């Protein structure tokens, strides 16, 4: 039977099978597993049926814990159920996994295995998560390639039904889950053939039903619990053979043979490696090479069924000639004797050697090692190093491979020049920007090559950790033989650089082979281009004798209406130069794929792309490479010489893409990093930046307030300071009574840090009266002013900061003089969240501790290489930490409890030592109100004085107080996170913290979707909005979190939208912080996931408020003390229709195109809901509190 060949990734391969054999799917998004759930949802939404002819029901839950609970319930009531997850998500499922396994319930969880968060979070792949489920009773099945994912997914589903043992089927996150490769697709007949309805019926027969009820889930006592646990043994004993039988059945069906432990290599191998996952593919490739080319007696065992672990099957796979074994684990268990697979193998072999019939004549040497944590590269040279280690008389044990561990010297050495890539596989590298569509084009190319030619094809894509101006590197391989290389391309025959300025940022030609082809997208003409290439790159081109092709893709894109997207153009160039397909055929295929990709968006888009293809070839030129490098352009340093040592020595390597070279000794032992590091990473990503025209400036401060990246700064300072200013440094007289005469005012743009979002220009209210298209801020090209403004910004930073006591914090024009202690983050250009975060840092940063939920804000706030939280000149600044996604409110509350305790202790000691310290100072400290900046300043002065007294005191109490003295200055705890956290996964904790009465400030950055994981619906999503898991529009209204919080009565609650009323936002932040109890601020945060022109984000906020969808208000329980209503509505009654707001956003508008009928109905309901809620708020706001409770008492009396 001929099956369809498709090019897909591992996630799709798993979902393809899981969906077809399930009736219920309950999921929660988590990287890198989210696409499995999203695909299932998309199929369900378009009525794709399972093999029994019904459409599976796909439901997004509030957390993985919730998903696991729902899976458990669905299984118990007889629905074939699956879920998809990874990492922390899998952790949250563990309690239910014990239950599901304990009850012998067939199920398969598909897991794209990912690192777990320890000292740091990582989204990338290793086996730390699945290894944490070994003890649950779930079977563990591992796939090492995309084809295996599809095959073993099916085998696992078949085996679970027969064996009753539930399984985790896992594969490596990103390396397998996101690798696009050509595979053979299993069709519905294959799936039907493997799934035996007899076992399905038996499973359903055990289900809970009132028609023949049973009771499951009892509580047991010491007398029988133990025996009960032992009842399952026979099922576990039988399981490996059942799995093998299913594998054999599958082999008959498809020809692809699998064993529980598959052996590859010399039949008489002496040295072998045992491992599982994608790394085993590379190991197989290397074993092939070592046995064939170097005649080494080596071999490899790929572990497929890891639990239940079958010693019998392992031994059967092991050649008896084996003398030494290296077991590789892709996980880390600190404090253990060794990692789990190693321990299992040692135990298995020891048991055999202790038995009557030992498998080997002599006990082999078994060593264990760790590799590939967090998708660390695992290459053939590393495999060779592992084998070479076994040549030693006493091979190194408990080693690491792939890193330099210069602390405990665990690592094996490897030869970086040992490369086994052969020319029968074409290897191509492409450097591009996320925004230019490079990855999309390459995915398309892989599809064309994989599906339209006989070639095997593989694509893997490396993304940036920044969300703005992010770069991408695409790794494409194709050739006539199957591709097993599960590592990045080491030697490329073709390199495409789709953005000219990347030549300055990366060693783009570092991996190209001699005589290779280099395609460069250049904004210069074919004659100018050579001279514009940096000298070092010119030299590489000459030395490596490269063929150089150049295209001005930007001009072609502009001429054909493609804007900044050069994807189609560069793809056409690639096919034209590489000759993979005859040119005409390639162009035809590109056009077919354009039609497929863009057809549903309208003919004009297809036409533009066609035109781009047609115009490309006329503009593609081969350049004759001169003999000498003549360019005067030198590569800029990665970071400034002025940077601190740690930045220069370590972080700069990560910035340069050489983080793999960072040694263990260079990493902090406990995940602790210094602040203020983003300022050293000058990214220069904006083509246009704002320029200040002081003639029209009204000094309102709004530009600095809304800047998401703190790239526009304001200072007021004594004019004396500007005597030494650079010539082009701009200033004007400071306006306002609060500043003394002779003070100057400057707005300075950090042009190298600006992302060019234009929010500042949009918000600027000051028009140039002579030319109304201009304002006091105007976008200009960055390059011509870069050098000059670099100098000006450095000079600006040297100017003294404002004395915080002079600032009227409630006025924007005044509080924007406060130094931002959150700067230059990697957030999206125009981010709607970061202005709020930055405001916290300005108003309270020098005394703030931040608990940050996982999500966008933890990524732009804490992703290496550089981080945005910063210190002021006194070294003070926000102390920041991220615990988890689900526990952030509790994490922050713990911080509060700790601070309160230590403050209380300090106060107790203060009272105790009153005689020594002096009652005047003690009383002053104890009674200080610290209500404003002046109060804080004065308290700091007192504490300094106290410390100087205590330094001379040697008593135990004195020393203790010295330690705790800083707690006497007020500390502000901010609990920050997105709506996914606050409304969904963290809501239970949030609710508890609100109820606790503790003085914490909770800032919810509400983008109304899970932005960080790609726009999945949360309970904050508005009715009618399209999001993942709400493809037909969210049918229910946004959860009214603020109303729920107000119900407590003692919680300060504010709903703000900076773009609608910035003064209101500031007021709410100040009041929330001042309120001595829990405060909740819900902040409207526009987001690229809304499908809007981000430069108009503030306008969208205004529309949301004007429509009544997002009422602005403050609920301050303090007001009740004065007999006032605590709720103050700060925005007016709806003055525009809801549709005039929502249909400006793609998330809503697209529903009118994809589901017109539903859109209409949902709009009507959503409009009604808005008016209903407004009315409710309005009524709440007019309740008379003047007699607050007294009336009742009087009556009672």
């Amino acid at each position, binding site marked *: 039977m001929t099956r369809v060949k498709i090019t897909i990734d591992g996630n799709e391969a798993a979902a393809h099978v899981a969906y077809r054999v399930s009736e219920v799917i309950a999921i929660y998004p988590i990287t890198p597993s989210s696409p499995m759930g999203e695909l299932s949802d998309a199929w369900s939404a378009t009525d794709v049926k399972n093999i029994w002819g019904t459409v599976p029901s796909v439901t997004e839950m509030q957390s993985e814990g919730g998903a696991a609970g729902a899976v458990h319930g669905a299984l118990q009531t007889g629905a074939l159920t699956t879920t998809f997850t990874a990492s922390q998500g899998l952790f949250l499922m563990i309690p239910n996994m014990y239950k599901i396994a304990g009850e012998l319930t067939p199920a398969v969880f598909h897991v794209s295995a990912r690192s777990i968060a320890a000292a740091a979070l990582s989204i990338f792949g290793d086996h730390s998560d699945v290894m944490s489920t070994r003890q649950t009773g779930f079977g563990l099945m591992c796939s090492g390639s995309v084809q295996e994912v599809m095959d073993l997914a099916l085998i696992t589903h078949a085996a679970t039904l027969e064996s009753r043992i539930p399984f985790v089927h896992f594969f490596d996150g990103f390396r397998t889950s996101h690798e696009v490769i050509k595979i053979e697709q299993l069709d519905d007949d294959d799936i039907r053939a493997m799934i035996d309805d007899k076992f399905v019926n038996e499973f359903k027969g055990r289900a809970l039903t009132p028609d023949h009820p049973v009771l499951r889930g009892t509580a047991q006592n010491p007398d029988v619990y133990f025996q009960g646990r032992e009842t399952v043994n026979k099922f576990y004993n039988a399981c490996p053979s059942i799995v093998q039988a299913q594998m054999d059945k599958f082999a008959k069906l498809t020809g692809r043979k699998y064993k529980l432990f598959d052996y590859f290599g010399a039949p008489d191998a002496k040295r072998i490696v045992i491992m599982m996952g994608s790394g085993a593919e590379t190991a197989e490739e290397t074993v092939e090479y070592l046995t064939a080319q170097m005649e080494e007696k080596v071999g490899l065992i790929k572990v497929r069924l890891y639990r239940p672990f079958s010693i019998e099957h392992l031994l059967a796979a092991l050649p008896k000639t084996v003398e030494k074994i290296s077991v590789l684990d892709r996980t880390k268990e600190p404090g253990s004797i060794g990692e789990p697979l190693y321990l299992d193998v040692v135990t298995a072999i020891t048991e055999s050697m202790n038995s009557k019939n030992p498998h080997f004549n002599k006990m082999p040497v078994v060593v264990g090692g760790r590799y590939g944590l967090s998708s660390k590269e695992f290459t053939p040279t590393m495999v060779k190093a592992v084998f070479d280690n076994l040549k030693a008389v006493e091979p190194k044990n408990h080693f690491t491979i792939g890193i330099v561990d210069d602390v405990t010297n665990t690592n094996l050495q490897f030869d970086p020049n040992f490369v086994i890539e052969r020319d029968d596989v074409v290897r191509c590298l492409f450097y591009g920007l996320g925004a230019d569509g490079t990855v999309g084009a390459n995915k398309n190319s892989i599809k064309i090559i994989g599906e339209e030619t006989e070639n095997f094809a593989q694509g893997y894509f490396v993304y940036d950790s920044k969300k703005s101006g992010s770069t991408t590197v695409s790794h494409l391989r194709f050739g006539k033989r199957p591709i097993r290389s599960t590592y990045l391309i080491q030697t490329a025959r073709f390199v495409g650089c789709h953005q000219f300025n990347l030549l300055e940022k990366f060693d783009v030609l570092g991996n190209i082979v001699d005589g290779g082809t280099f395609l460069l997208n250049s904004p210069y003409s074919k004659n100018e281009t050579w001279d514009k290439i940096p000298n070092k790159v010119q030299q590489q081109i000459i030395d490596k004798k490269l063929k150089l092709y150049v295209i001005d893709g930007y001009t072609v894109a502009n001429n054909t*209406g493609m804007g900044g997207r050069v994807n189609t153009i560069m793809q056409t160039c690639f096919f034209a130069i590489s000759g993979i397909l005859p040119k005409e055929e390639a162009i035809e295929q590109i056009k077919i794929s354009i039609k497929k990709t863009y057809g549903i968006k309208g003919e004009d888009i297809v036409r533009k792309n066609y035109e781009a293809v047609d115009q490309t070839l006329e503009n593609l030129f081969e350049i004759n490479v001169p003999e000498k490098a003549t360019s005067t352009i030198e590569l800029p340093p990665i970071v400034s010489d002025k940077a601190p040592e740690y930045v220069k020595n370590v972080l700069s390597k990560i910035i340069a893409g050489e983080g793999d070279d960072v040694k263990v000794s260079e990493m902090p032992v406990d995940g602790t990093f210094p602040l203020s590091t983003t300022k050293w990473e000058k990214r220069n990503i904006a083509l246009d930046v704002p320029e200040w025209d002081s003639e029209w400036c009204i000094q309102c401060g709004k530009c600095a307030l809304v800047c998401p990246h703190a790239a526009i700064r304001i200072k007021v300072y004594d004019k004396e300071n500007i005597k030494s200013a650079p010539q082009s440094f701009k200033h004007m007289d400071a306006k306002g009574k609060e500043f003394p005469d002779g003070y100057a005012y400057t707005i300075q743009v950090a042009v190298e840090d600006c992302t060019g979002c234009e929010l500042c220009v949009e918000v600027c209210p000051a028009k140039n009266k002579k030319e109304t298209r201009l304002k006091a801020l105007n976008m200009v090209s960055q390059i011509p002013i870069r050098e000059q403004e670099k100098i000006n910004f450095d000079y600006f930073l040297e100017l003294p900061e404002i004395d915080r006591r002079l600032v009227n914090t409630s006025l924007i024009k005044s509080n924007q003089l406060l130094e931002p202690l959150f700067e230059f983050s990697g957030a999206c250009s125009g981010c709607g969240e970061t202005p709020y975060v930055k405001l916290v840092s300005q108003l309270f940063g020098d005394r703030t501790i931040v608990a940050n939920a996982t999500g966008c804000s933890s990524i732009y706030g804490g992703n290496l290489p550089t981080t945005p939280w910063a210190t002021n000149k006194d070294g003070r600044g926000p102390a920041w930490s991220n615990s988890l996604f689900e526990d952030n409110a509790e994490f922050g509350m713990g911080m509060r409890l700790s601070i309160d305790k230590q403050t209380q202790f300090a106060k107790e000691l203060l009272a105790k030592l009153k005689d020594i310290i002096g009652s005047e100072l003690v009383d002053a400290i104890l009674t200080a109100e610290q209500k404003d900046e002046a109060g804080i300043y004065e308290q700091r002065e007192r504490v300094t004085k106290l410390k100087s007294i205590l330094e001379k005191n040697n008593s135990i109490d004195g020393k203790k107080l010295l330690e705790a003295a800083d707690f006497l200055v007020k500390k502000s705890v901010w609990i920050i996170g997105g709506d996914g956290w606050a409304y969904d996964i963290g809501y239970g904790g949030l609710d508890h913290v609100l109820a606790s009465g503790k003085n914490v400030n909770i800032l919810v950055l509400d983008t109304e979707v899970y932005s960080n994981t*790609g726009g999945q619906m949360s309970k904050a999503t508005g009715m009618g909005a399209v999001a993942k898991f709400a493809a037909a529009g969210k049918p229910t209204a946004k959860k009214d979190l603020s109303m729920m919080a107000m119900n407590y009565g003692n919680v300060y609650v504010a709903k703000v939208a900076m773009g609608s009323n910035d003064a209101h936002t500031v007021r709410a932040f100040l009041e929330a912080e001042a309120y001595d109890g829990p405060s909740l601020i819900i902040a409207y945060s526009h987001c690229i996931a809304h499908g809007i022109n981000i430069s108009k984000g503030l306008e969208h906020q205004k529309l949301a408020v004007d429509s009544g969808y997002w009422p602005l208000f403050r609920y301050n329980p303090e007001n009740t003390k004065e007999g006032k209503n605590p709720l103050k509505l700060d925005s007016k009654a709806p003055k525009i229709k809801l549709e005039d707001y929502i249909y400006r956003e*793609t998330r809503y508008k697209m529903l009118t195109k994809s589901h*017109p009928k539903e859109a209409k109905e949902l709009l009507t309901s959503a409009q009604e809901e808005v008016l209903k809620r407004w009315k409710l708020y309005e009524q709440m706001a007019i309740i008379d509190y003047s007699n607050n409770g007294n009336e009742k008492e009087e009556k009672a009396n």
Partner: protein
Amino acid sequence: MDLSTNYMGLKLKNPIVPSASPLSNNVDNVKKMEDAGAAAVVVYSLFEEQITHESGELDHYLAYGTESYAEAINYFPEQESFNLTPVQYLDHIANLKKAVDIPIIGSLNGVSSGGWVKYARNIEQAGADALELNIYYVAANPNLNSLEIEKTYVDVLKEVKKNVKIPVAMKLSPFFTSMSSIAKGLDEAGADALVLFNRFYQPDFDLEKLEVVPNLVLSTNWEMRLPLRWIAILYGNLKSSLGATSGIHTHEDVIKIMMAGGDVAMMASELLVNGIGRISEIIKGIERWMEENEYKSIDMMKGSMSQKKIAQPAAFERANYMKLLQSYKTIL
């Protein structure tokens, strides 16, 4: 009493035709128009520019930010298909045809020559009884002279006529140096009707924000004078039917247009402000007036006050001020 009229080959029971406006977005409204007595309806315009923009917007925002960041490869769920504006418009035409018996006239504003033809065909296939080409164009380009512009109008019409069988009307603006000449050119090119005149929304300034703002002003009664004059001048000189639009609010307005030589009187502002029910009041008004003034049919009055049939044909060609002076002299 016979109110019927013939408009570009369509036999209409009376001359009242609601012109293209947001009212026709809704099938129920069009039903109400029919119930109130409207003889035909011109549906709101399909704008090619809007179609292109909509495609571009969808493509841009669905792709924006994608393939940039490992955790969020994209931001929206895949959709099987999008019911884009042309499809929605054509479905709407088809639905209207099902819902009412009166003729449905599609309206199209194109940009590219391919677009004009393609969408004209689509509208015909969707079942429209006729098509109005809504050439909404402000001639701001100094490098385009009047001849070139006029040629574009004629070329568009010819292309469309070549490709559709239903009658085609040209809705024109009054900003031509020689209205008679362009009218003749279009007539010769096969226009089945000329609709006079399109009103441009004139932008306004917001003095506080120093911004140019769109300002929708509904027509007022006096604006009817312009089509009235030109219909009177053109009547009898062309094969094309003549439709009047702009400023028609009352039954007297309709009667005047008929007397000038118009075949239909189109209205939108009146219905937007005072409701669709105005149609029946206006029809009653016409009937009453005809009865009082002893007109048996619309045909009887059609063109009776046109330039060809009035005592002083020059009245239509001179500026009003001159005419007044002359009348004064005559009295003397």
